[in-house]
C-alpha cells in the first residue's frame, strides 16, 4: 500500500483533499452545490475534447472548467441561478458526448475520467497539480473576508458596497481550478462528493467559521486517505469509498448534533 508506485497517489490525494476541504466549505456555506456538480461535468467534456485534438487533458480540464464557471456566473445574473446552472451543465455534457462520439477513446480512459484512477497520476502531472492547488488556495486566502462576508450575510455585504457578482464569479473560478485538479484523481462524478460530504459534516459539528474550515480539511483528508487505502486493499474504485464516506460523515454529524441538542435541552 505504501510502495513506491503508490507515492504519487498519496501525494496527489493529499493535495486534492486539502483543496477540496477549503473550497468545499465555501461551496456548502454559499449553497453552491449545483455549480460544484456542474463544473466537474464540464471539465469532463474538456478532457474528452483534449483527447480529440491531442493536447494535454489537464489543459482541456482547466479551460472547460473555467468556461463552465463563467457560463454559470454570467447567465445567473439574468435568470434564476439553478436554471442557469442546469442549462450550462447540459450544454457542456452534450459537447462532451459529441467529442466522445467523434474521437476514439478507450472505455477505461473514459471510466477513469468519470470515476477516478488514483494510480493514473504520473510524476510529471504532480507539479502542475501542486502549482494550481497553491494558486487556488492563494486566491481564496486573498479574498477570504469578502467571500465569508457575502456568504454569511449577503444583504449586509451588498449594503456595505461589496461587489457580490465579482465575488461570486471569482469564487466559481476557484471552484473550476480546484475541480480541474481533482477530476483526474477521484473522477468527474466524485469530485462533487468530496466537496460536499466532509464540509457539510464539518459545518454541522463546528460553529466558528475558521475552525469549521479546519474541520472540513481534516475530514476531507481522512476521507481521501481511507478511500485510497480501501481502494487499494479491496481493489474497488476509489470513487465508491469517497461517496460512501462523505454521506456517512454527514449523517454521523447530524446524529451527533441532534444528541448535543437533546443533552443541552435536558
Amino acid at each position, binding site marked *: 500500500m505504501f510502495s513506491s508506485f503508490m507515492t504519487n497517489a498519496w501525494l496527489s490525494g493529499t493535495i486534492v483533499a486539502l483543496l477540496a476541504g477549503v473550497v468545499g466549505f465555501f461551496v*456548502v456555506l454559499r*449553497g*453552491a*452545490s*449545483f455549480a*460544484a*456538480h456542474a463544473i466537474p461535468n464540464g471539465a469532463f467534456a474538456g478532457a474528452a475534447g483534449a483527447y480529440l485534438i491531442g493536447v494535454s487533458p489537464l489543459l482541456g480540464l482547466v479551460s472547460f472548467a473555467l468556461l463552465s464557471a463563467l457560463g454559470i456566473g454570467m447567465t445567473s445574473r*439574468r*435568470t*434564476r441561478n*439553478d*436554471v442557469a*446552472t*442546469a*442549462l450550462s*451543465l*447540459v*450544454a457542456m*455534457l*452534450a*459537447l462532451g*458526448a*459529441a467529442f*466522445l*462520439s*467523434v474521437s476514439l477513446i478507450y*472505455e477505461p480512459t*473514459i*471510466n477513469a475520467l*468519470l*470515476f*477516478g484512477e488514483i494510480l493514473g497520476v504520473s510524476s510529471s502531472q504532480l507539479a502542475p497539480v501542486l502549482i494550481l492547488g497553491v494558486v487556488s488556495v492563494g486566491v481564496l486566502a486573498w479574498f477570504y473576508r469578502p467571500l465569508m462576508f457575502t456568504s454569511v450575510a449577503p444583504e449586509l455585504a451588498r449594503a456595505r458596497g461589496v461587489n457580490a457578482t465579482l465575488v461570486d464569479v471569482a469564487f466559481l473560478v476557484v471552484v473550476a481550478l480546484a475541480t480541474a485538479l481533482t477530476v483526474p484523481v477521484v*473522477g468527474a*462524478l*466524485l469530485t*462533487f*462528493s468530496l466537496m*460536499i*460530504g466532509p464540509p*457539510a459534516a464539518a459545518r454541522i459539528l463546528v460553529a466558528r467559521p475558521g475552525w469549521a474550515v479546519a474541520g472540513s480539511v481534516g475530514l476531507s483528508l481522512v476521507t481521501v486517505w481511507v478511500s485510497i487505502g480501501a481502494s487499494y486493499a479491496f481493489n*474497488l*474504485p476509489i*470513487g*465508491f*469509498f*469517497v*461517496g*460512501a464516506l*462523505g*454521506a456517512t460523515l*454527514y*449523517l454521523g454529524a447530524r446524529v451527533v448534533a441532534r444528541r448535543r441538542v437533546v443533552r443541552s435541552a435536558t
Partner: protein
Amino acid sequence: MTWLFEPGWWANGTVRTALVVGGIVAVTSAVVGIFTVMRGQSFAGHALTDVATAGGAGAFLAGVGPLLGFVGGGVLGAGAMDAIGVQRVKGRDIATGVVLGAAMGLAALFLFLSARTSSATGATQLVLFGSIFTVSPSTLPEVSWLSGAVLVTMALVARPLLLSSLSVELAAARGIRLRAVGLIFMVALAVAVGMSAIVIGAILSTALLIGPPASALRVARRVGSAVALAAGLGVLATWVGVLLAYDSYYWSASHRSLPVSFFVVVVIVAEYALASVLRRRTRRVPTAVVEPEGWT
C-alpha cells in the same frame, strides 16, 4: 426534400420509435419541468437523474429489468432527499448534494463490478449517455403507462402544488399539507426523470426537464399556456434533434453520426436564447414566476 430528410428517414422503424417515445418523454418532462423550475428544484431534478442512473447500474448488475432499476432508484433517492430535509429551502441544496454524492459512489461501484463480471463493453456509456436510437419498440407500452401515471398525478395535485410553489404561507393558511404535496411532487419527478434517463439518456433527461419549461416561463403569461408551450418546445427540440442526428450520418465521408443528445441540446439552448430575446423585447415586468390563473 432530400436535402432535409436524408434517404430512408420515412421508412426507418428505429426513427419512428425514437420520434414516438421521444415525444411522449418530452411532453411528460415539460409538464413536470414547469413545476420544477417554478419551485427552484432544478438541482433535485438533475440529481434524481444520476440517482436513477445508479439504480439502473445496480439493476444491470443484478440482472433485473433496467426500467425497474431506474425508476426505483429515482423514487428511493427522492425519499432520501425528503427524509434528510429537502422540504426546507435552506437545507435543500445540501440534502440533494449528499444524496447525489452517495448515489454517484454507488454508481461507480455498480458500473465497475458489472464491467468486471461481464465482457459487454459500453455499459458505462450506455447507462450514462443513453441513446434514443437504441430504444426498442417493446418499451413503448411501459413508457406510455408510466407517463400517463405521472401526468394524472400532476393533474390531481396541480392546484395545491401551484399555490405552495408561489406562496408557502398562503398555502399553509389554506390548509394545504405542504409536506405531503411536496413529497408527491418529488415522487412524480423521480418517476418522470428515471423513465426519461433510461429512454433518452441522463443528459437529455435534464435538458428536456429544465430547458423548454425555462424558455416557456420567460414568455408565457399563464401557467396553462406555459405548460402547453413547454410541451411544444420540448417535442420540437426532440424531433429536430433526431432528424439532424439521422442526417449527420451523411454529412461526413467517414459516416460517423453525432449523438442525438448533442443536437437536441443545441435546439433547446437556441430556444432559450430566443425566449430571452422575446422577453426583453416585450419589456414585461420581471417576475420570478408567472401569475397564477384564476385565483381571487
